[in-house]
């Protein structure tokens, strides 16, 4: 399990990544991230929504109320063009960080 500090840093990228695949509502975002990371990243309601609202305020995602097939109203989020532009640089940044950490780990193992 990854610690909470790293999780906070990766959380935005995780949300942006799953929203790249299409519109999702909050519960689906949390479930999809958990499934796709084999449970390493988990969002609770308390950790997800403040982050989603901040991202929405920055214009990275946009939420809209929709009525689903079961008749329930859910607020579905989608990436905005600003959000789409964020994904690639964030991935590059994190990739660089993980590469550096792997190198450090190799040095430590040697």
């Amino acid at each position, binding site marked *: 399990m990854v610690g909470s500090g790293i999780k906070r840093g990766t959380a935005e990228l995780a949300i942006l990544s799953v929203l790249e695949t299409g519109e999702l509502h909050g519960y689906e975002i949390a479930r999809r991230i958990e499934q796709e990371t084999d449970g390493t990243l988990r969002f609770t309601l308390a950790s997800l929504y*403040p982050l989603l609202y901040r991202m929405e305020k920055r214009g990275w995602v946009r939420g809209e109320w929709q009525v689903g097939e079961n008749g329930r109203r859910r607020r579905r989020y989608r990436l905005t063009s600003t959000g789409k532009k964020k994904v690639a640089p964030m991935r590059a940044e994190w990739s660089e960080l993980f590469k550096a950490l792997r190198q450090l780990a190799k040095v430590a193992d040697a």
Partner: protein
Amino acid sequence: MPDWEKLVSGRLAQLALEERERQEVIGELAGHLEETYEASRQRGASHDEAIRRALLQVDNWNRLQQEIYMARKKENVMNARTSRLWIPSLVTLTASFITLVGFAFLGLKPGPLGSRPDHENWSGHLVGGIITGLSYAVNEYTVWLLALPFIGALGAGLSRRAGGTLREILISGVFPAMAWLAIVLVVLSFAASLGQGLQVVTAPVGPVGLILVVVVIPAAGLLIGVLAYSAVTKWREKLAG
């Protein structure tokens, strides 16, 4: 099936957003809890267990309330710790100081509650210092002491409303006593370094009596306010479901 909207609405009763926006947040969070509950039920959990699992999604509703408010209204405007701890603490300290000076200025002393202690010097006696200290506090500060629970409750309320943890709420409520303790310790240390200074500074109650009058008794008054406020808010939450 629980009424999730009612539950979330009760827990986020002090979410200071416009009503329409507040209702949207409540509806969205309620939907999330509902789906968490249903997923647990589908995996075979009992009704009670599914509710318990859904409620585990939030460990501190006050903090969530504050974080949502910050995210939607004033992200990064104020450091969360400042709003949860330092501002309530400073308000409590200021309120306690203003009431102390104000009551003294207005001459609000208890009179009938006790006679002014004789100024026999108890500096060297532990029990005598405590008795004199209590007597001194009752005579000089009764009205102020009666106001302290309200001030403690004010600090606790401000901290809780800002999403403070139990520790932050407690510290915010009793902060004035902590500040006075720090001041008394500095003064006593300085006085002790001056030979007879300690006896002069702490007369007539002695060091123990002084700490009792200035720190312990006010701290107890403030703490009563914090505990009373916590009890009332818990009761209100329970009523709200």
